[in-house]
């Protein structure tokens, strides 16, 4: 079991501090989504953990070894930046071979792993954005690491390709510790187990996503008839919208509709559970869950 621990890490560019006293600990294989608006400090956090930026203060420990002083420890961290970082003039195979010569690993293995067989002889510059991202991800999995840092791997990709990339990452994430940054709430709930919310360079929340409960649920219902006379719902576009305080309350409403002979064709939560949290993070920081920088259990 591997563990990553950040203790009062401050970091940034030149002398400008971007991250302020970041403290958290990851101690189980899982996907940890680092969520925050643009400019919150997600990329700086990843670059600092990856050893690209040297922290101004604090310590980063991987399995109790300081990554800033131990090259061997740092080599156990793989980093996918927002840039593909692939030599564009090379074929996919040669680009992966180029990196495998530097960092080790078997290009053929990752080509199989990411199903790049049909692309391996194509020039990287000729690939679509989604294919480029798949090849770039393959590079990160060339050698076995203890920690994978994936910085917005689905940025600028269309929803279908984003889903494909997330599925690949989910497939590869078994028994691995992955830090995955995003500013997409739906992506965060789709792929993540833990949430690290970051705002203005500080961690404002660290918790299991399943523990995060909104104050109110907006439930959309498509039904065969007007249900506003049966339950307290109002019409919004195609849906009757029901505001409830818990999933159980929504279940009771559904039961009531069925008992009244209403045919319910669709029922879904309209807002993302992280919406409220994200909005409060963009404005006033709300510490509704555990205290920030606390270790998630």
């Amino acid at each position, binding site marked *: 079991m591997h563990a990553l621990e950040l203790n009062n890490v401050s970091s940034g*560019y*030149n002398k400008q501090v971007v991250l302020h006293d970041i403290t958290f600990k990851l101690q189980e294989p899982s996907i940890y989504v680092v969520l925050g608006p643009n400019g919150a400090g997600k990329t700086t956090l990843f*670059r600092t953990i*990856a*050893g*690209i*930026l*040297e922290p101004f203060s604090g310590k980063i420990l991987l399995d109790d070894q300081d990554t800033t002083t131990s*090259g061997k420890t*740092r*080599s156990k*961290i*793989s*980093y996918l*930046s*927002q*840039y*593909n*970082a*692939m*030599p*564009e*003039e*090379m074929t996919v195979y040669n680009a992966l071979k*180029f*990196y495998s*010569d*530097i*960092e080790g690993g078997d290009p053929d293995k990752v080509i199989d792993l990411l199903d790049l067989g049909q692309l391996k002889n194509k020039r990287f510059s000729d690939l679509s954005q989604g294919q480029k991202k798949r090849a770039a991800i393959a*590079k990160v999995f060339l050698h076995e690491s203890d920690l994978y840092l994936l910085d917005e791997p689905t940025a600028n990709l269309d929803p279908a390709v984003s889903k494909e990339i997330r599925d690949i990452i989910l497939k590869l994430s078994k028994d691995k510790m992955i830090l995955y940054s995003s500013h997409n709430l739906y992506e965060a709930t789709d792929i993540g187990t833990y949430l690290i919310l970051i705002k203005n360079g500080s961690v404002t929340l660290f918790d299991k996503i399943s523990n995060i409960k909104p104050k109110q649920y907006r439930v959309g219902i498509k039904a065969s008839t007007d249900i506003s006379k049966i339950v307290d719902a109002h019409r919004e576009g195609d849906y009757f919208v029901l505001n409830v305080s818990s999933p159980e309350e929504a279940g009771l409403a559904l039961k009531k509709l069925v008992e009244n002979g209403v045919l319910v064709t669709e029922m879904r939560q309209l807002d993302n559970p992280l919406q409220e949290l994200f909005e409060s993070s963009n404005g006033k920081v709300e510490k509704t869950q555990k205290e920030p920088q606390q270790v998630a259990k």
Partner: protein
Amino acid sequence: MPNSAVIFAKRSLILSKIYSAVGIFFAAFGVFVSIAFILAGQSVPVAYFLFPAAFMAFGMLMFSTSVILLYVYDKNNGVLEYLLSLGWSQSDIFKCYLKSALLISLTLFTAEFTANVVAIVITGALQGLVTLAFTAMLGFSAISLITIAMMAFSSLQKQRVGANSPLALTIGVPIIIPTFYIPFFLPLYVAILVELFIVALAGGLSIVLLILSSRLIRREKMLP
């Protein structure tokens, strides 16, 4: 960095063929003049043998310019950032690109060397060795300085490959240009001393810059 310099050298030649072609042109002209002087033998003043050296060194410089373009290219597309994440230091990166530049220029110098040695062997005109010695000294020292200086100050150049003349040429040309005139205006020994001074200056500065690279150049300057 196993064999990385060779790989980077190949990549840079693939990426930019124009500078390679210009480099070959200058080198070929230098070799032509050099062989003409060797064939002319005693009738050519020895100081004049420094003149083709300037052309051949400039050819080597142009030929290796593609490495500098590759550096800017790799910086912009995140390759340098990835190398830093693999544990490379700024100095490791500089050394890798410098080795590539020297390797590329060595291939051109080998061709220049071979052509000149053949002419010297045929004619017995040993003055041609002066050309070769100064070509090597001027070429490799100027390439070292320009490559390292360019990497160190690459943040001043944002354009990608082919988009603009590299800043390195602006730095490099003033170093090489005087060597085109010196042989015609200065006596032999003074000319040799001045050119040795240029070689020492360029070589010394490049060594100092390389040693100080990790301190002088912040890692964030290598990020896209």
